[in-house]
């Protein structure tokens, strides 16, 4: 079963929003019977990776060290997500995530939407970002 992926881009660290994202990812992964993977791409990547590792099955850290730039971030996420071929990719509601999400979905040939409630599995058709 393909993984559920959460992407953490916010410089705010593993804050309440990121914890909520991890929780939503975990519930979706359980419904799908799959693993939960976190991709961390942030200036605080090592610290965030340590914290998120306690609640996900696998952490992938994209080491950059610089400030967020949309094009390199998008390029890195596209490469990593193409390799993982996840069932679903979840992002938080921070500025950077909102910027990257539709573009990543376009590049991966998936769909994107803004969800602020419950995520449920109703069937499987393809990727969703």
């Amino acid at each position, binding site marked *: 079963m393909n993984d559920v992926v959460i992407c953490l881009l916010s410089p705010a660290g593993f804050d309440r929003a990121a914890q909520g994202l991890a929780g939503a990812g975990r519930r979706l992964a359980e419904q799908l019977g799959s693993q939960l993977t976190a991709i961390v791409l942030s200036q605080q990547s090592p610290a965030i990776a340590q914290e998120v590792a306690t609640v996900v099955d696998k952490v992938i850290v994209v080491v950059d060290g610089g400030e967020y730039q949309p094009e390199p971030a998008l390029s890195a996420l596209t490469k990593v997500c193409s390799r993982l071929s996840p069932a679903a990719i979840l992002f938080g509601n921070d*500025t950077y995530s909102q910027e990257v999400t*539709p573009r990543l979905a*376009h590049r991966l040939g998936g769909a*994107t939407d803004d969800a602020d409630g419950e995520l449920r599995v109703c069937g499987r058709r393809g990727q969703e970002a």
Partner: protein
Amino acid sequence: MNILVCLKQILDPEIPAREFRVNPAKREAERGNANLVTNIFCENALETALQFRETLSETKITVLSFGASTAEDSLRKALAMKADAAALVINDKTSNPDPLTVTQVLAAAIRKLGSFDLIMVGREAGDWGAGQTAGLLAEELKMPCVSFVDRIEPMNGGLRLNRQTDSGSEVLEAQTPLVVSITNDEHNVPRIPKVRDVMMSYRQPLTQWTLADLGYQLEDDKYYQVVDLSIPQKESRCEFVTGDTLDERVESLAKRITEVTSLL
């Protein structure tokens, strides 16, 4: 500088909540007594473009909309606000096209209109609030994208952009061509056109295309489907805490809060 601003006409989001209805069969909002208005973030985008033109006089602003024939009103208002040209792609097929369809149609229209240095869209629409257009349009047109911009100034052949972030704001420098999504700020409150300009706008030319004119064929269920649409039901209950003394009532209230929050 050639600027294109995308405008979306939506049901007035300011209608009282009690008057808002959805049609579950069609899975869309019912118009009812609501007016049709231009999405506020799109108007912020137009205002930002108009202010940019005030600092760089050799700038042409074109407004573009994809929607029902009534969207002409939004474009006429934009002309009254002093946009230079307007184009409408009439959507006579589906009332709620998905974000990718919208951006593919807009991209086809933009290619037909010509070459643009800067493409501006609102950060999200007040109806569905998907907030996808800027990013998807950038991908369709193979352009870079900057989101949540509230001010744009010319700078050495490029642009200086002020962008809102979760922790404050960033000042960015970028080269054209570029897609930006515009958010609201005290600097880009849309101007109110003069009555005379509103009347004059109805005499100005407005390009109208159908999807067939763009060679675009709508596909059903290409991206995602709205399978259900409903208004959230609010449930409220009132409980009175009991106790003989104030301390007992406070204790009882604290205990009840703990019980309720532990269920969340």
